[in-house]
């Protein structure tokens, strides 16, 4: 193990691409972890999946027009969020079905566009699953900018986010613009997906949003603690993911997601309050006590 860590550290010291990958991973771990908490508490995990998939056609169109990925991704991401709201409000189609329809529809448009332009520069594999070796200095700055902006937003509007997530009716009664907050969160989801494009890719970004947050959710009763824990698990997953992918030469995004999943399972079985194993022991102890 020590040998492997030394091998990894010397790699980090010598190869700029590995440094970039590590920094990008850490930033993605933080921003996804923090945003993910609100996504989980609002019951919008599926929505997160939809927005991240819907970013694909935007990225491809932006490439075709020679624009920044960023703009294309945000436009199709937010349009999809609006479309989902429109369908579920103006028909009897339920929210989750509306999400499913637009998620796959938008994704299909993206795939068609990629195959139609037949470019060798846009590798669909890289967009879908990330290509952490290709994280450029520019990408890194963009990811950094998005992370800082999103965290600043959450700190600044923490109160409004909290009340509109916990008790939307009260939020509206005291004049908090709950609809606007919903769409700002959708906008943020598109941003976070773009920020994660190179590191984990479109398909797996939802795991970085949902998994560390859910782990934190099992471990605490306070939202501020949940936010910090979630970001921490995101960062740990990112570092360990880059480590294993360098060591065994496997996909980075997937390694990060596997680490995050393992941490979740540990919390699921062993968390002091809700862990399955702990609960089993407690039930057994109670049973024995009652039997005398």
């Amino acid at each position: 193990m020590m040998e492997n860590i030394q091998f990894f550290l010397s790699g980090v010291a010598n190869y700029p691409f590995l440094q970039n990958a590590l920094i990008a991973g850490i930033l993605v771990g933080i921003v996804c972890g923090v945003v993910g908490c609100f996504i989980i508490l609002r019951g919008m995990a599926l929505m997160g999946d939809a927005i991240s998939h819907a970013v694909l056609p935007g990225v491809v169109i932006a490439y075709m027009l020679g624009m920044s990925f960023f703009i294309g991704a945000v436009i199709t991401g937010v349009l999809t969020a609006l479309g989902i709201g429109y369908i579920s409000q103006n028909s009897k189609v339920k929210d989750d079905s509306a999400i499913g329809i637009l998620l796959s529809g938008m994704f299909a448009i993206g795939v068609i566009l990629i195959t139609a332009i037949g470019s060798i520069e846009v590798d669909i594999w890289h967009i879908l699953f990330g290509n952490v070796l290709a994280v450029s200095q520019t990408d890194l700055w963009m990811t950094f900018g998005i992370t800082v902006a999103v965290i600043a937003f959450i700190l600044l509007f923490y109160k409004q986010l909290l009340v509109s997530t916990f008790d939307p009716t009260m939020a509206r009664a005291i004049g908090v613009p709950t609809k606007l907050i919903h769409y700002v969160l959708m906008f943020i989801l598109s941003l976070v997906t773009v920020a994660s494009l190179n590191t984990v890719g479109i398909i797996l970004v939802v795991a970085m949003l949902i998994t560390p947050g859910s782990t934190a959710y099992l471990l605490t009763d306070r939202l501020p603690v949940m936010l910090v824990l979630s970001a921490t698990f995101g960062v740990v997953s990112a570092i360990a993911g880059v480590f294993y992918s360098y060591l065994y030469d496997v996909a980075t995004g997937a390694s990060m997601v596997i680490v995050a999943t393992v941490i979740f399972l540990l919390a699921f079985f062993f968390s002091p309050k809700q862990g399955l194993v702990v609960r089993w022991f407690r039930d057994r102890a109670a049973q024995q006590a009652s039997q005398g």
Partner: protein
Amino acid sequence: MSYSVDINHLSVAYHGEWALKDISFQAPKQEIIGIIGPNGAGKSTLMKAIMGMVTANQGTIRVFDQPVENVRSDIAYVPQRNMIDFDFPILVEDVVVMGRYPHLKWWQRPSKQDREKAIESLRQVGMESFRKRQIGELSGGQQQRVFIARALAQEADLLFLDEPFAGIDLTSEQIIIDLLRDIRDQGKTLFIVHHDLSKVEEYFDRLMLLNQRLVGFGQLQDVFRANLISEAYNGQVATIKDSDHSDDVVVVK
């Protein structure tokens, strides 16, 4: 005479269907007012309209002689318990601090005074010792008291409670109604959406019978009558004549 809520010819439509039709009433201050009616009668819609959350198609609403937008922080809302996710990672104390939000600027954090106000409100409802518990660890009645404490922390003069007795044991119900009477005696006005006819006479100073239109509004003895209740509930009630007292006993089917 100034009123707590003054509504003239209010009509609200949802998706092209009338939820409320031509409602007019003037509610005095410092009373506990029950809003009664069958499912779909527009009880929640009326409450939301007064809180400025639903736009009126016609009519005017004034709260304490002002448009709602001017008095938002003076109106508190106690949600129906099934609208709340009790697994939410939040402590009792932090729920009550939310009552201070309407008094803060959009960028301000709750101060130490706001926290103290929250704790004082918890003390008033007898829940101070639970302040560090997660909200889901409490019983239904205790949760309801926490949300009432939140309304107290807001220092609102008008309170809306949505089915506060739903799914709560009788002892807690008694604690809560005593608490609400205390709050009324401090000079506040309370509107309570209620679905159960059994405790109406005991709980409310004034009653509103609603079924999209206003079937009755006024003193209990004028409104809590078999013919009006039957009208509000579309005849879905049985009336039994009590021969000894010649009182009508009403049972909702």
